[in-house]
C-alpha cells in the first residue's frame, strides 16, 4: 500500500518538476523577447519564475529521497560496505526527524506568513511557503516505504 502511494506521489512529483522548469524557461524567454523587441516589461515574471524554482527544489528534493540520490559524503561506507547496515538506520532516523520538523514548523509558519502577500503578483505567501511542509510530507511517505527493505544502495556502481 505505502509502496503504491510512494510510487504515485513520485510520478506526480516528476511531472510537477518538469512543468516548473518549463514554466521558468518559457516565462523568462517571453520576458526577454518582450523587452528586446517590443520595449515592454512583465513585472511579475521574475517573481513567478522564482516561485516555480522554489517549488521545483522542494518537490525535487522529496523525489531524490525516494531514489536516494541526495549528495552524500560516504567515505566510510565506500571503504567498508558492511558498515552500511549500521549507518542506514541512523540516516533514516535523521531524515525522518528532519521531515517531521519541517512539517510541524512549516504549518506554524503558514499561519503567520499566510497574511502576507507577494510583492508583484499579490498572492498569499502562504501558498508558496506551503511547498516546504508538503514536500516534507512526501519525503515521509518515501521514507516509510523504505522500512523493511535492504538499505538502498548509494547511486554508484563499482567495478
Amino acid at each position, binding site marked *: 500500500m505505502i509502496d503504491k502511494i510512494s510510487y504515485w506521489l513520485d510520478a506526480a512529483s516528476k511531472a510537477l518538476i518538469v512543468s516548473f522548469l518549463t514554466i521558468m524557461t518559457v516565462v523568462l524567454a517571453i*520576458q526577454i523577447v518582450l*523587452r528586446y523587441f517590443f*520595449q*515592454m*516589461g*512583465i*513585472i*511579475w*515574471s*521574475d*517573481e513567478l519564475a522564482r516561485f516555480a524554482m522554489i517549488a521545483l527544489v522542494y518537490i525535487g528534493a522529496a523525489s531524490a529521497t525516494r531514489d536516494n540520490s541526495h549528495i552524500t559524503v560516504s567515505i566510510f561506507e565506500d571503504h567498508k560496505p558492511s558498515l552500511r547496515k549500521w549507518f542506514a538506520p541512523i540516516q533514516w532516523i535523521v531524515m525522518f526527524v528532519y521531515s517531521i520538523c519541517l512539517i510541524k514548523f512549516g504549518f506554524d*509558519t503558514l499561519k*503567520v*506568513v499566510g*497574511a*502576507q*502577500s*507577494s*510583492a*508583484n503578483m*499579490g498572492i498569499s*505567501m502562504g501558498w508558496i511557503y506551503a511547498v516546504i511542509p508538503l514536500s516534507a510530507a512526501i519525503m515521509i511517505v518515501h521514507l516509510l516505504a523504505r522500512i523493511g527493505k535492504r538499505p538502498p544502495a548509494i547511486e554508484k556502481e563499482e567495478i
Partner: protein
Amino acid sequence: GGYSGKSSVDGTAAADDNESGTKIPAADTSGATYKLRLGHQSPEETNVQVYAKLFKELLEEKTNGDVHVEIYPFRQLGTDRELLEAMQFGTLEFGIINGPPISGFAPETAIVDLPFLFRDWNHVKTFLDSDVKDEYTALTEEANLKMMGIMARGFRHVTNSKKPIETVEDLKGLKIRVIESPVYVNAYREVGTSPQSMNWSDAYTALEQNAIDAQENTLDIIHDENVAEVQDYVSKTGINFVFSFIMASKQEFDKWPEDIQQAVLEAADEAGKEMTTRNEHNEGEFEEKLKAKGMEINDFDRSQFEGKFEDTYSSWKKEHGDNLLKKIQDIK
C-alpha cells in the same frame, strides 16, 4: 538567503565599496539585561547604518546600559521581507525597513508610496509631526509589527543614460527598473515608461550594458551604489518619496517593562527626527558629490504631474478608500 543578493528595495545589494568594513563590535555587554538585535539590509557606509547606530546609542543611554543593541547590517539576517517576517516570529527584535516591502504585510502602508503625494520636504515634515502619522504607524499593529521611528529618506529621482528628462514626454518608452511594488509599477506605467522587473545586481549589470535605460532612487543611494559609473543623467522627477522605518517585533515589545518600552519609543522617534533633518540637509551635498562623479543633474517641473496619476489613485481608492489619503493630502 540572508546573504544572497536578491532584489533589494533601494538597490542596497550592490557593491560595498567602502574601506572600513572590518569594524569589530566589541562592546561590553556585561551589564545589560536586554540584549536586543537590530537587522537591516544596507551596507555599512549608508545613512541606514548611521540611523541604526544613533538609535542604539540613544536607547542604551536612556536605559543606562540596561539594554544593549547589536546591529547586523548588510543582509546578515536577511532582506527587508525576511526581517519583517523574523519580527513577526519574534526571532528578531528590531529592524530598519525601507517603506515599500511593508505593504506585503500591511497593504495600506503603501499609501505613502503613491506618486506625487508629497508636495515637498515641508509637506513630509508636517506629516511626520501630525496625528495623521500616528494613524499611519498604527497600520502595522495588526500584522504584529510596531512601527516606531520614521526617517524621511528623500524623493526618488530617475537616472538614465540617454538624455536629461525635462518633460513627462521624455519619460515615454524608457525601460526603467523600479522597485517591486505595484503602486510604483502602476505609476511608472501611467507616465508611459516600461517598468522592468529585475533584482538590483542584475539591474546594475543591465544598466551597465544598456539592456535597460533607467532606474529610480534617492540621491544618497544613487551615490552609494555607484550609479554614476553606469548612468549619466539625474533628473529630479521625485515621483515617489521614500521613508525608512525602525520597526519592532510587537510580541517581543509587549514583553518588556514599561520603562524600557518608553525608552525604545523615544529613542526610535528621536533617531528618526534627527535623521530626517540630516537627510534633507545632505541632499545638496549628495548632489555635489554626484556632479563631481560626472553626473548631470537637472530640475524637473513636478507640476507637470498634476492629473497624470488618476488611474493609480482611483484604483487605490477603490481598494482602500480615501479617508487617510485625504488627511495626508490636506496637510498644509
